[in-house]
Every structure is written in structure tokens, then in C-alpha cells.
């Protein structure tokens, strides 16, 4: 282990200032990811600024009738929040499908958004990895690819984003509030995470020193009819092979008025499925149309040798999720 300085932040601006001024400093949230990386040698910050006790843990109605979730709200608390459970069940389900109870008690909303990939090569400091050490190469291209991307990857990186929560937030059109050395800004959750391109070391568009302070969910009445499904190798405590977050609005005739879909486990970022949404709007929410919507979304998928199974799995996951949300009788 490498020695580092630890400081507990008292207020947001001081925390931002401390990290922004020092390129070797990092924010520390619940520590459920960064501490692992310190142990593995993946992350080597010299200064840790603990933001987990900043007074940012409120979950309260937003100004426009949505819901504002503070960045230091713990995953367990967010999942248990009555508004989250009733108005945005997809988010509660996504949170509860992640990690274990103990980890969820520590993990924060802000930290979860910034969770780094579980790619085996990223975590193994003895192997080349462009995300960890830019320019060294991508070991996964010729390696173990089971958990890797089939959408939006580059020849520099085929890693996937591991968060479940972020997939739900992207589906819900959430807004991420950020404070940085030059003031605050807001951006859509969908734009927070990047595709790897030729800079896979950058997971998000945030600049060094920018701190997530809150996530705001818009008022989206039909989000009450939403769900998260996660396909994985064991029943709990495992990362997604494929996951789906969806919210569905169907009229009395069974026609899809509106729909929100995002996939996890397929890309370097939570994958908002705009093509699938467009394919579904205006027609009945049948299994058949759901499968075709998935296929439209996955048309440009470029699976690796070791993860082509994700295409039928994603199709099946979307179909199953929409079936649950649809009032139509099953038409399998």
C-alpha cells in the first residue's frame, strides 16, 4: 500500500477546492470501490478527501415536482425511500440488485455513479490496460470477454460500466448536479458517462475536482410503472451480464404512448436505448415488438468472441421487462 493523506471535508467548496488544486487528490465517498482500488494498486491517490459526511444526503421533492437525491445519500436509504419506491420503482429495484446489504449501507449515490469498471485487466496491475495506463493496450481484446461491451466500444477499450443504479437514472432522464472550482453546472445523466473512444482513462465528462452534489429525477408520472431486471451468474452479489431499466406508458387501447429504456452491461456507459424506444412508441407492447425493438437497438452491436450471447440475452431481458410492465395479455 502507498501512504496517503486523509482529510474529512467539512463543506462542499472546501472539498472541491482541495481536490481541484491537487492533481493527486481524490474524493472518497462510501469507499466501496476506491478502497478496493487502493488495495489493488489500481488507484494511487496521495490525498483523499472524504466527502461522505457532507450534508448532501437529503432526498426531497425537486422544484419542478421531481425528486432530488443528495449525492451522499446511501444506496440503502435511497432504495428504501418511499418516494423512490412508489414513483420510481426502477431505481429502487436497480439499487437493491447491486452488491450486498453491507455495501449498499456504505455506498453513496455520487460514488455509485463514478464506480469504475470490473474489467479483470483494469483491476490487474500486471496487465496492459488503456483505462488504467493509457497507451499500454487493451488486454481484453484478446482475453476474457464475458463481462465486456458489445456497443460503443473502441479498439482502445471494451470495458463496461458496472453500476445498476446509473442505468435506472439514465432511463429516467435524471439530471446530475455538479460543483466544480468554477462554479456549479448540471448535465443529463445520459451525458455523464463517456464512450471510451481513444481516451478510455476518462469514464465521465467531469473535470478533476468536480464533485457530484445531487441527482434530480424529473417528474415522470409513468415511471411509477417501471422495473429493473438484471441477468447475472448467481442470484445475488454478482455484476450484470445484461440489465434493463424500463418505464412504460400504455393507453387504454394497449398502445405505447411513451417508454424509457436503458441497458446495463452492454457498454462503457449505461446505454440509453433511443432506437428501441422509437420502435415501440405508437404500437402495441407485444413480445414481438419488444424483441424487434431490442434488435433495432442492437443492430450495430459488435460482440467480441466471448460475449455474443449478450445479444439474445439483451433481447430476452427487454422482452421480459416490458411484458411485466404491459397490461396486455402475454402473446408469447
Amino acid at each position, binding site marked *: 500500500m502507498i501512504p496517503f493523506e486523509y482529510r474529512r471535508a467539512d463543506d462542499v467548496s472546501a472539498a472541491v477546492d482541495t481536490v481541484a488544486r491537487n492533481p493527486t487528490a481524490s474524493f472518497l465517498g462510501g469507499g466501496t470501490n476506491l478502497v478496493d482500488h487502493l488495495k489493488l494498486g489500481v488507484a494511487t491517490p496521495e490525498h483523499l478527501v472524504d466527502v461522505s459526511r457532507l450534508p448532501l444526503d437529503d432526498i426531497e421533492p425537486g422544484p419542478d415536482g421531481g425528486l432530488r437525491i443528495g449525492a451522499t445519500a446511501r444506496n440503502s436509504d435511497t432504495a428504501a425511500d418511499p418516494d423512490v419506491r412508489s414513483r420510481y420503482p426502477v431505481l429502487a429495484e436497480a439499487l437493491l440488485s447491486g452488491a450486498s446489504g453491507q455495501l449498499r449501507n456504505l455506498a453513496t449515490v455520487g460514488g455509485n455513479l463514478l464506480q469504475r469498471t470490473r474489467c479483470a485487466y483494469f483491476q490487474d496491475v500486471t496487465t496492459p490496460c488503456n483505462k488504467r495506463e493509457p497507451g499500454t493496450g487493451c488486454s481484453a481484446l484478446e482475453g476474457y470477454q464475458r463481462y465486456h461491451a458489445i456497443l460503443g466500444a473502441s479498439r482502445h477499450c471494451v470495458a463496461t460500466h458496472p453500476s445498476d443504479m446509473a442505468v435506472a437514472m439514465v432511463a429516467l432522464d435524471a439530471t446530475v448536479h455538479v460543483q466544480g472550482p468554477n462554479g456549479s453546472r448540471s448535465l443529463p445523466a445520459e451525458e455523464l458517462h463517456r464512450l471510451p473512444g481513444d481516451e478510455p482513462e476518462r469514464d465521465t465528462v467531469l473535470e478533476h475536482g468536480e464533485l457530484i452534489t445531487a441527482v434530480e429525477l424529473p417528474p415522470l408520472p409513468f415511471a411509477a410503472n417501471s422495473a429493473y431486471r438484471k441477468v447475472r451468474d448467481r442470484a445475488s452479489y454478482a455484476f450484470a451480464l445484461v440489465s434493463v431499466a424500463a418505464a412504460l406508458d400504455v393507453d387504454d387501447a394497449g398502445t405505447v404512448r411513451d417508454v424509457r429504456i436503458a441497458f446495463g452491461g452492454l457498454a462503457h456507459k449505461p446505454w440509453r436505448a433511443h432506437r428501441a424506444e422509437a420502435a415501440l412508441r405508437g404500437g402495441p407492447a407485444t413480445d414481438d415488438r419488444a424483441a424487434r425493438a431490442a434488435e433495432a437497438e442492437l443492430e450495430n452491436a459488435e460482440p467480441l468472441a466471448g460475449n455474443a450471447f449478450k445479444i439474445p440475452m439483451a433481447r430476452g431481458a427487454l422482452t*421480459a421487462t416490458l411484458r411485466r410492465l404491459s397490461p396486455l395479455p402475454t402473446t*408469447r
Partner: protein
Amino acid sequence: MTSTVAGRTTAATANGVGSSPARPDGTRKVRGEFAYSSDLWHEDMLWGATLRSPHPHARITGVDVSAAVAVPGVHAVLTHGDVPGLNRYGLEHPDQPVLADDVVRYRGEPVAVVAADHPETAQRAMKLIEVTYDELEPVTDAEDAVHGDVAELHPGGNVVRHAPIRRGEQTPQADVVVTGRYEVGMQDQAFLGPESGLAVPDGHGGVDLYVATQWLHVDQQQIVAALGLTPEQVRLTLAGVGGAFGGREDLSMQIHASLLALYTGKPVKMVYNREESFYGHVHRHPATMYYEHGATRDGRLVHVTARIYLDGGAYASSTGAVVGNAATLGVGPYDVPNVSIDCWGTYTNNPPCGAMRGFGAVQAAFGYESQMDKLADACGLSPTEIRRRNAMSEGTVMPTGQTVDSAAPVAELLDRLEGMPLPQPGSTADLRTLPGGVSNTTHGEGVVRGVGYAVGIKNICFSEGFDDYSTARVRLAAVGGQPAVTVQTAAAEVGQGLVTILQQIIRTELGVEQVTILPMDTSIGSAGSTSASRQSYMTGGAVRAAALKVRGALLSHAATRLSRTTAELHLDGGKLASVADGVLADLVDVLGEAEFDETVEWRHRPTEALDPETGRGNAHVQYGFAAHRAVVDVDTELGLVKVVSLDCVQDVGKALNPQAVVGQIQGGSAQGLGLAVMEEIQTEGGVIRNPSFTDYLIPTVLDMPPMNIDVLELADPHAPYGLRGVGEPPTISSTPAIVAAIRAATGKELLRVPVRPDHIV
């Protein structure tokens, strides 16, 4: 209650054989107060760390430790040149360097060790050791290692052992022939307590080592050879063991810590973290198996032909014995007139593989049981019917020519399984009962149910002519006004509950309630390994034999004092009694100041080596059998499997402790479930890709269903109390039963375990 054993009247005190008393270590373990080896502590102790090879195959061209030695707080940095004795160790062949000298053969092989005043100091110093390597092409395929044109990793080639088994006609004709190629992934023992121990120098050139292990004396032999010391100078005591399952049969930190302790003159503690633990112990051999089964039209086996390749990884470990098991048990619990099996165990540059619960029988069972289902299909029979038609029984002759001379109730196991009620169709109300569980993957739609059966066979105790024995000392005296017994053995308690069993045996044989099991150490003779399902049989047998000697001496003493014959006396509930007159005296009064102290070295009946050409020989001392029925629900849309029920019938000869028997069956079945659907060490070019419990998946309570368990007690007349080893058989049939059920649900071939969602969608 009295019973007659070997012609002598014995007494059963409460909590004797056949009951399920509380474990002496149970409360402390549940309360978190039990001291495991990682809790060891000594004033002034140093912390050891191990530098391991980052390459699966490389030549070492230079090692520079100067920067590491210069770190303040570092007391020693040692490399192969500092090993005073033989720089090789190994369970069967001393082929593994204590510290690598010229070549490293697997990623994670120890190259240097450091002792420092703080674990972080040791880690930091370790990273300053400069090792230069010339990387070599790794050999990573077991079949290539045997037949291919690849580098020889050890003198004499890459075959650790080839075991052929030949019986009957070698070119038989059968009406129905089915073939298959099957693979078993590399499973980990996944014990919870990582490798750890404390070496304390004695100031006279010797060392005391406290360590979590499975076989103190074989550890001692290997340490002694590496340190160039005598057994009297290297004394081992068992520290608290957090699970083993075979993974502690090979050495890990034992020699390293002893070496550092002797070099620095200070106690040295070593504890692996979870990642290092994956590099620090052997795993279950991955297998590739080619099977051909021939049968008559009505489903009676004519022949089995098989080639089995077991990847032993970089060093031999127990590969030879694993090969012997896979070969001799390669047709399963069936009567097969014509057999031709070839089993190879190989060297590669993969992680070393060795002992794990089931030991060769697990791999073969996935092959032969998959084949039996295929044959059932081809013959138009049910999976249970084809097994019944070919089931072995007492008197069956094994492919080795050995006659099975005690109960082999294969057909009865199947009958009883079939008689158990099947689970009701899943309720969609409780997500936990559905594939994917609380991941919310299905609410019941698209779910198909399947049922599968499997039977397994395992040899109990050490085989192939090994001089298998255990040593026990039993001492009876009055302590504080009560009769009390102390039991001393070197048998490793690894969590299985042997300490409870030994107490029960004493209570039954001597009628004394208060029994103390002394710490296990090398001040007494070997007990053999806690493996091969053998300790109840072997150390139980030795303790019983020593107790009988104590009883004989005590009754002679009493008979003289009371002017009676020994034949009329017996012990019961702390009393001396006669058949005719009932209680004669309190045992404590009979004892007075006397002390009865007996040590026995106890053996099972001898076994024979296998003929190297034909595989013939009475190689095994006892066979154990278990059968499973698995019921699975498969979400065919997403490829997810929920094992709904996993029922087991096992013959245990005699349940010395019924609760412990059920625990073994549940645990073994869960380990088999893990291999069936999730557990695999992912290796790539010899490198482990998932060395953590986040990425190496073991079943949780949400994956493991409740079990119906039926225990048969068909006594083996050759074994103490008629018992049959319990620990391994349930691991063997669990895996193929689950896979058979998934096949039944999906129609997929499923030729490899673990079965993953991507094999089903």
C-alpha cells in the same frame, strides 16, 4: 442402552456414538470468539510477505534484493540461495521449489520472502525486489502437454501419471453406442480462512510452527527436508482452521515462515489476503474427458471406453492419486464387463492443482453420468431405469478386479430418491423461488422445469497400497473428583467436527462424560491427512482402539481389586457395573490415583498398488455412495437457472453423529451445485482472472435450495462401528444431477461445467 461390539459388552453414556451433542468449538465459532490461525500473535513478531512470479513461465535471469533490504524495519529478504536444505517440496514428488531458482512455472510462484516489523513495511520492501525474467511460452493445454510438441516443464516430461484400466474385451461390439466430450472447469475450495501461521524460533536452531493445515506430519517432513533439520527440531501445532476441502493439504507459508523465523531469530507471522490465497493453494483439476458407452438394446452396459485428461498445473501435488481415483472410479457405480480407461495427469503452466473434496471422482462423475443419461435416451429408458439396470451392488467386481465386499446400495438409493415427493410448481409470489431470484428477471413466464438424477462413487481412506494409519493416545484418570479422559492425536480438525466425534467415541467406550481433546500437534505420531473422507474411520478407529486398551487395563485393575472377572464388568455412566449385580462402584473410586494411558497406531486393512499396465489391483479399502435428484426451473429467455430442490440419499454405514452427517451432505451438495452452475477459476494463458470472492462466484443462500436428505446405515463390517466416510460422496453426484435437470428443461447438450446463462440462451 447397551450394545455388543467385537464380542465385548460396551456401555453408552449420554452423548455417545449415534447422538448429536454440541460441538466443543461450536459456541465459540458462532460467537466469533474462536481463534483462527490468522489471529495468532506473539510479542516482537515480524510479518512475512511473499514475492510471487507475475509470469506463468519464465526464466529468472537476476534477482536484486538490495533496495528491499535497505528499507528500515526490514529484517530479512530471502531467496532460493537461503534455503539451507533441499529447495524442493511436494506431497507425492518433491518437484516444487521453496523459492524459485532458475525457472518459474506458474503465475504466483514464490520467488522471495520478506520479514519486516509491520505488514505494510514487508509489502513495500517486497515491491522493491528487482527480479528480471526471460518470459517463456506457457504450456496451458493438458492434452497438448501429453501428446503435443510443447516444452518439457520438468525432467521426464509433462506426464505426472498415466493410469490405464483394462478389463475384459478391448474391442467389444454393442447394439447402442453413445459418445461425448466433457469438460470440467477449475474449481476452488473457497475456504474462508486464508492461509496463515506463526513460526517461533526456539533459540536452539529449531522452530515451533502454529499453522492451519490438513496433515501436520507430512507438512513436517517437507519442512524438515527444506530446512535441513531433524523432525525433533521442527514441531507443528494445529492452529484454528477456517475450512480446508483439500486446499491445505499442500504447503503454503509453512517453510517460508519457518525460514524467516530461523534467519531473523524472531517469531514470524504470515497471512495471505484473498487474492494471494488463490495463488497460494492448489485447485480442483480441470478435466477434458472423452467417453464411449456401449450397451445392449435393453440398456445393459457392454463397455466403457474413456480418455481422461486432468490438468495438474505447474507442480505434481497430489495429481498422481487424483489420476488413480478418476481412472479406477471412471465408470461410476455400475457393473461394466469391458472397460478401457486411460487417465493422464499432466504438468502445464496453469495454477497447480491437487486435492479437493471428491478428488478425481468429481470430474469422472460428470462424464459418466452425462453418458448414462445419453444412453438412457438412446435406449428409450428413463434415467433411473438405465442406472438401476446397471447398478453395482455388494459382490460386484470393479474394473480393477476388486470385489466390492460391503454394501453398495446403488439401486436402493435411486428407489428412495424416486420415492421422495417432488416439489410443487413454483409460486410466483416469492421471487426467491424463481430463476434469477430477487434480480427480478422473471415472474414465472418462460420458465421450464426439469428433473435430473445422478449417482456417484468414492473411495474412502487412502488407496493403492499407501500405509494408511492414525495414532491416538487415550488417558483416563480421576480429575477433581470426576473420571476424565484426554485424547491426543495429530488429526486436523478443519471444521468438519472430528473433535466432537472423538469425544462421542470415548463416551461410548469408557462411559465417561468428560472428554478433553488436546491440541493437535506433532508430539504424537501421524494421524494422516484430514482428507479422503477418512478421519472418522482412521482417527476414530485409532481412538476407539486406544480406548478399548484403556478399558481392558481398567477392568483388569478393577477385577483384581473386586475379585471379579473382567468378563462380567462393564462401564456405564461413570460407574463400574457387573451384568449380574448392577452398579458396583463409582468409576472415580475405582480409579483412585491410578492412571490408564494407552497409545495405539491403527491401520485399515491393506490395499494394493494398481498394475501399471492393466490397472488391476485391490486398490481401495472402502467405497461410499450417494445419489441426488435435482429439480430446476430454467428461465429459457435469459438462461437463468434456479435449483428448486436437491434431494440426496447416501449410505453412511453408521451415522456416528447424525447432525454432522446431514451437515456434510448439505455442504457437499452445495459445493457440487457451485461447480454445476457458477464456480470456476477463469484462467487465460496460465493467469487467474478472477482471484476474489466478488469475481469467483460461490453459491449463496439464495442459490441453494432446501434439501430432503435420507441417510442409510448399512454397516461395513470392516470399519469401526460399520461407518462409511461421509464427506466426499455428496459433492460428486450433486453436479451431474443438476446438469441433467437443466438438460431435461432445455434440451441443450451442456457438455461443460459450470453451466452459465450463455450456454442456455
